[in-house]
């Protein structure tokens, strides 16, 4: 069943029900180093990516380090 999420600020309809599944659905390798994810303003540790369930209206941030000053 699809649900409405905000993924990195963009509203979309997804089939994913966990963090791991949303990463997969977005084409992000969840084994890649230096990734971090927040759900509704709280960081979700990598070990919980399979377990944490997503609900319609959730906001997911998927980030990584880039060049910066």
């Amino acid at each position: 069943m699809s649900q409405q999420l905000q993924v990195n600020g963009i509203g979309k309809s997804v089939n994913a029900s966990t963090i791991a599944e949303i990463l997969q659905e977005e084409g992000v390798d969840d084994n890649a180093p230096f990734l971090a994810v927040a759900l509704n303003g709280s960081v979700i540790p990598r070990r919980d990516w399979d377990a944490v369930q997503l609900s319609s209206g959730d906001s997911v941030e998927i980030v990584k380090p880039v060049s910066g000053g």
Partner: protein
Amino acid sequence: MSNGLTIADKTFASRLFIGSSGYPNQQVMLDAIAASGAEVVTVAIRRINIQGGGENVIELLSDRYHLLPNTAGCYTARDAVLTAQLAREAIGTDWIKLEVIGDEETLFPDVEHLLTAADELVKDGFIVLPYCNDDPITCRKLADIGCAAVMPLGAPIGSGMGLRNPYNIEIIRDQVSIPVIVDAGIGTASDAAIALELGCDGILLNTAIAKALDPVKMATAMGRGVEAGRLAFEAGRIPRKLYAEASSPQAGIVRA
């Protein structure tokens, strides 16, 4: 060689911290960082590009340097705290260069949000290095909160104006017991040297190297400027005097 710089539980031989942004290309960045002698390199945290692509520079830097993530671009304490927590998860470091910006044009810090974010992050176990105004009171409050260093700006970020208020920087150095790192505003090697001569413990810069005509050469100059300034500080400069004092002997001067 000058004495090392200790922040929290780490000691660095170089007192120059360097940013990784805005270089002509990745190789120039790597060469410039190496030439600067810096051991600490700053990075930002950004939403991934879901369409793919993007840089993988972090893999290269993380093997060789102590990565210092920043909260650049954050305008509220809430965003800065979340960004710091994401950085800790992504990089596996408790260190954070805390930036909470108050104005888009000047990029001056929002002191109210900065203090709130610093307090939350210190309580959450972070080693907090806040970018702040050259205001001794703010710096004292940040030190009291438990920040590991204060990083007053020399001038606006990317402006290259040097130390606009060296007297405030001197007062800050005098009034806090934690390291003082001048962050932002450095334009050239002498600016860095002046900050270190005043007793500052280090410099954090990016644009002055990345946007120089020859970034690798400027990185070398900055590394030496920092080292020269620190050595001069440790050596102890002579007092300033209004009138001359002859350096050659006054006895036995030839008189025609």
